[in-house]
């Protein structure tokens, strides 16, 4: 990790790398069995169109779960459904149960704002607020009443996002002056500053260069200790590097109706080296994409 950080600051070419440590980390993974999310036969509709059909899976605590699959198969929809970010989309509704620690987050009595308080999200394109670096992190805690030790909270969030050393001297400067990779880590710091339990990452590295990507991926390994991560990625190698468990989604085409389905969900090593389903095998071997 130190190696990669140095490269980012000196701007040298990317190493041919470097990921020999990965299998060891992966082998030690997925010991946790505590279930954070229990999805039971979840259908997601936009109006009359069924975007996702019959998704059932468990997401475990302190584990990195990746969702992979071809474009348009509903991965982003799935992950946004997990923290009720799709509520503002017209015609959106859910059938089945999305249980977070046993509570259905789509229950009528559930407050979606409270849901998003505990389940944070990082988006594809870094989207820092047009404020200073400090205010970016401090904005939400201030509103949520976490005003005590705001300085410490911001510093802690930046440290955990591996960004503190780079920005500690310019906390009052605009966040828009940071590089893409730094902005994305700022967004991660912003999300973890309010101490969520789960962090959803929707293709967090697709707008970043390889070095920034490596920095964010290393960050995810560190974050795994304290948070549950769900990452959507269209980059299979990234899923192989980072994820403990992988869910493969694909499109079920019936006539002119295309519905996303969960094809296979297992430990990453199994998905990529010995998948059970033919469609998974076709996808991970590149026969279709």
């Amino acid at each position, binding site marked *: 990790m130190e190696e990669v950080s140095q490269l980012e600051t000196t701007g040298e070419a990317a190493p041919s790398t470097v990921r020999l440590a990965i299998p060891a980390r992966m082998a030690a993974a997925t010991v946790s069995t505590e279930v954070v999310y229990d999805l039971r036969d979840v259908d997601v509709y936009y109006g009359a169109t069924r975007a996702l059909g019959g998704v059932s899976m468990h997401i475990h605590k302190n584990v990195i779960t990746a969702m992979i699959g071809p474009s348009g198969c509903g991965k982003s929809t799935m992950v946004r459904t997990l923290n009720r*970010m799709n509520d*503002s989309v017209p015609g959106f509704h859910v059938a089945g149960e999305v249980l977070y620690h046993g509570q259905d987050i789509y229950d009528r009595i559930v407050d979606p704002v409270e849901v998003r308080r505990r389940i944070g999200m990082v988006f594809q394109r870094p989207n820092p*607020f*047009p404020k200073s670096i400090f205010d970016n992190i401090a904005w*939400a805690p201030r509103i*949520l009443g976490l005003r005590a030790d705001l300085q410490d909270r911001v510093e802690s969030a930046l440290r955990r996002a591996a960004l503190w050393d780079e920005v500690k001297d310019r906390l009052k400067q605009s966040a828009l002056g940071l590089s893409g990779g730094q902005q994305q880590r700022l967004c991660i710091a912003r*999300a973890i500053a309010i101490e969520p339990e789960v962090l959803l990452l929707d293709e967090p590295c697709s707008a970043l260069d390889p070095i920034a990507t490596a920095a964010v991926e290393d960050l995810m390994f560190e974050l795994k200790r304290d948070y549950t991560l769900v990452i959507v990625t269209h980059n299979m190698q990234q899923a192989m590097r980072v994820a403990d468990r992988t869910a493969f989604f694909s499109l079920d085409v019936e006539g002119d109706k295309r519905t996303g389905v969960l094809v296979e969900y297992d430990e990453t090593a199994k998905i990529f080296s010995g998948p059970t389903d033919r469609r998974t095998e076709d996808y991970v071997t590149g026969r279709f994409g």
Partner: protein
Amino acid sequence: MAAVDPFAPLVATGNLRRRRRIDLIMRGSATAAAVVAVAILGIVIFSVAQRGASALSISFLTQDPSVGLGAAGGGIANAIIGSVLIVAVATAIALPLGVLIAIYLTEFATPRTAAPIRLALDLLNGTPTIVIGVFVFGLLVVAHGQSGLAASIALAVIMLPLMARTTQEMLLLVPHDLRDAAHALGTRRWRGIVGIVLPSALGGILTGAVLAIARAFGETAPLILCDSIFGNGTSLNVFGTAVPNIPIDIYHYSESGFPNDKARAWGAALVLIVMILAGNLAARVILARQRRRMLAR
């Protein structure tokens, strides 16, 4: 075999020459039309400046009108202050309302509810100002007499659609992912709007306000009905009495028979034009800076 001899000189011949001439004519016409538009503005400003310059002086801008019909000296200071007061009250009414309407339209309305509201705003924008003046006249002036407040309310009605529309356009310029980010942090919707979206759009909202203010300074029809009977009064009590203002001054002075007054009318017109031009230019500068800041992400 090529249709045209490749070794022939590369000049336009025949049909191409005719088309080139037509192209030049069209371009010339378009340029001339643009020049005419600018020229008209220039002519208006120039003729007002030429005729009004003789009346312009420091005392014109800082003194109240002298007593007595057609008397020499004095100025339109009371009218300037009165206009500022009336427009300030109108802005205090129209700005918050306009911003709130724009927030509703961009953040909360569904396409079905937004359409009639937008239509209503557009219709309001197109309503003749004399009609708005008559409306406020019937509402307030008939019962309570003329007052600066009645004029302010009429001006606020005129300013409202302009303010709402520019604010809405500015809010739409704020990238959607900023709202998503605020939302994903577990904060209430209005927090994101007030804390993130509005500050980002502030420059544009200011621009809309300045443009609306510039327009309000010159609207005369509602003032004729609601705020024109003030004589040489210098009362600036906006809520109780008719307050002197520039457009009505121009009207009165231009109707008067005295040559002094005629010069004053031109002078007042020049002051008005300069104020409105300055407002428009300021609005453009603010808007350009705002756009650059927004798009530099």
